[in-house]
């Protein structure tokens, strides 16, 4: 049973939750309400008047091919970011789990990238791959490869995926390592005696026993790729070239603050709000009940 503290009055508990309520109200409910409200209007260019359009903004968005392209871009981007960051993290965690001496050092070093803010990470990667002065670009040039993510859409996508996934590997690594260490050693030893070699053990024992961790990370990483990669994209490609890296969150910003189409931008926010709610429901439904094995 969980421990519950009970209060006699109403005043003290109210006072205790008030800070959290205020923060949520100011930074979530108020802007979210504003977004929903504004998504039903089209303001004039100077912001002096608003015209009621009902669901017109949504109607327009869903039939807009750029918006649908942005959906596809987001899907590609988040699948790549999630699989790259989780794949690399799992690989590193398996290696670190086998290590006995010096594992503390590896763990500490691997956690560092997590402390780097997305925008800073973006700037770092931008400098490394800068088309004129970038170190990596220069080396690639020596190898005969002409790197130019400003013009090449595939390279641009690759770069923002790498930069976004890089900062995320640490986080995933920590969870995977903890998950691996929670698997009883004797189960793995029993499998080894039963004849399973390393890869078979991984496939039939480690991976299934790790599935609760994997599922949790999957949801968390998709949410990250959807919403928290704005800084990386803004600093490296600004959504370009030709909107090749404009994911949904970036389009909210681009249409609203650059294009000054606040009605459409609000409508896009509302769509994102629905998406993140769905992901949260999935997370609560499955993770709170645990993926069973």
């Amino acid at each position, binding site marked *: 049973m969980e421990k519950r503290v009970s209060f006699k009055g109403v005043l003290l508990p109210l006072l205790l939750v008030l800070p959290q309520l205020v923060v949520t109200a100011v930074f979530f409910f108020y802007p979210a309400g504003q977004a929903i409200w504004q998504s039903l209007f089209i303001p004039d260019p100077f912001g002096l008047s608003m015209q009621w359009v009902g669901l017109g903004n949504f109607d327009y968005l869903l039939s807009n091919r750029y918006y649908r392209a942005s959906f596809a871009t987001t899907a590609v981007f988040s699948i790549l970011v999630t699989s790259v960051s989780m794949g690399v993290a799992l690989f590193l965690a398996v290696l670190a789990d086998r290590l006995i001496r010096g594992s503390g050092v590896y763990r500490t070093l691997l956690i560092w990238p997590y402390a780097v803010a997305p925008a800073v990470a973006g700037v770092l990667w931008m400098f490394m791959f800068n088309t004129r002065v970038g170190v990596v670009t220069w080396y690639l040039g020596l190898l005969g490869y002409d790197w130019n993510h400003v013009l090449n859409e595939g390279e641009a996508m690759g770069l923002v995926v790498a930069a976004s996934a890089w900062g995320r590997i640490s986080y995933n690594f920590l969870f995977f390592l903890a998950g691996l260490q929670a698997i*009883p050693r*004797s*189960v793995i*030893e*029993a*499998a*080894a*005696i*039963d*004849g*399973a*070699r390393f890869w*078979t053990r991984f496939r*039939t*024992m480690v991976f*299934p*026993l790790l599935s609760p961790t994997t599922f949790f990370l999957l949801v968390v990483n998709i949410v990250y790729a959807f919403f928290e990669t704005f800084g990386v994209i803004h600093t490296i490609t600004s959504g370009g070239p030709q909107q090749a890296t404009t994911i949904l969150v970036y389009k909210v910003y681009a249409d609203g603050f650059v294009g000054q189409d606040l009605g459409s931008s609000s409508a896009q926010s509302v769509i994102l709000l629905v998406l993140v709610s769905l992901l949260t429901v999935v997370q609560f439904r499955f993770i709170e009940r645990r993926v069973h*094995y």
Partner: protein
Amino acid sequence: MATVTLENICKSFGKTDVIHGVDIDIADGEFIVIVGPSGCGKSTLLRMIAGLETVTSGEVRIGGRRVNDVEPMDRDIAMVFQNYALYPHMNVFDNMAYGLKIAGKPRAEIAERVAGAARLLQLEPYLDRKPRELSGGQRQRVAMGRAIVRKPAVFLFDEPLSNLDAKLRVQMRLEIRQLQRDLGVTAVYVTHDQVEAMTLADRMVVMHAGRADQIGPPLEVYENPATTFVAGFIGSPPMNFVPVGLVGLGAPEGTVLGIRPEHVELVSGSDRLHGTVVYAEALGAETLVHVRLADGTLATVRQDGTAPTPPEGSDVGLIWAEAHQKLFGADGTRL
């Protein structure tokens, strides 16, 4: 079916030496129990036979073949772990079939062998259950079944009964012995429980601080302990140790006389050994009388439950047949 030979086995973890040269020859079909207190290196020894731990020096041979550098899966062994180590995401059938599936056996043969093991272990109604839906005793049986289906040459048991309650432990002990006899498989069984060791073993190995103090049939070890450690570890209550000075034996300084509690008799007067009764434990069939000797050592006398018990604080004499006394030198070894 195979012999197992350990030759001058040593093991160190870094700079710590935990096993200092152990030699054991295990015959085909023999049930060997390695017994000792925790930290004596008995589990490490077993894990070296299994191949889960590397051998620092010495040689392990299974069926005459040197297996020092052979992977666990290629040693033709099966192991039952203390915590059973069942695969939590697989049902009972898959737990038992896992090794056979990896070995690439045909489906029909797998089904037949698992069914056979399940029948033997009375697990038939539970084949579809996951380990978490089983009781401790049932989990124990599944772990046994997983070992049986592969028909290994050697069974290794690492304290398999220590997580069960007392009653189940006695029952499973009998079942394990029965099973090993029926299958005729060589078995190496590690335990800290001397009753398990006495009842299961063809021969037992008493380990003490990384050495095998004595190897022999249980009764032989009980009757003729090689060291004071063995004498004190095997048998409950343990053997009594009396400094020879107290009994007036002409032996070198530091020599200790050992005598089992059941071989001592209480008499009202004796010129051999005196003591004061501290208290008596009546266990029904027998009574344990604890006596404090002149130098402060406690001695235990095991007498029949129907025999009269001397009152606490009374002065008693202790006598025994000379044939039963064992003498140990100052270094703890038999003289």
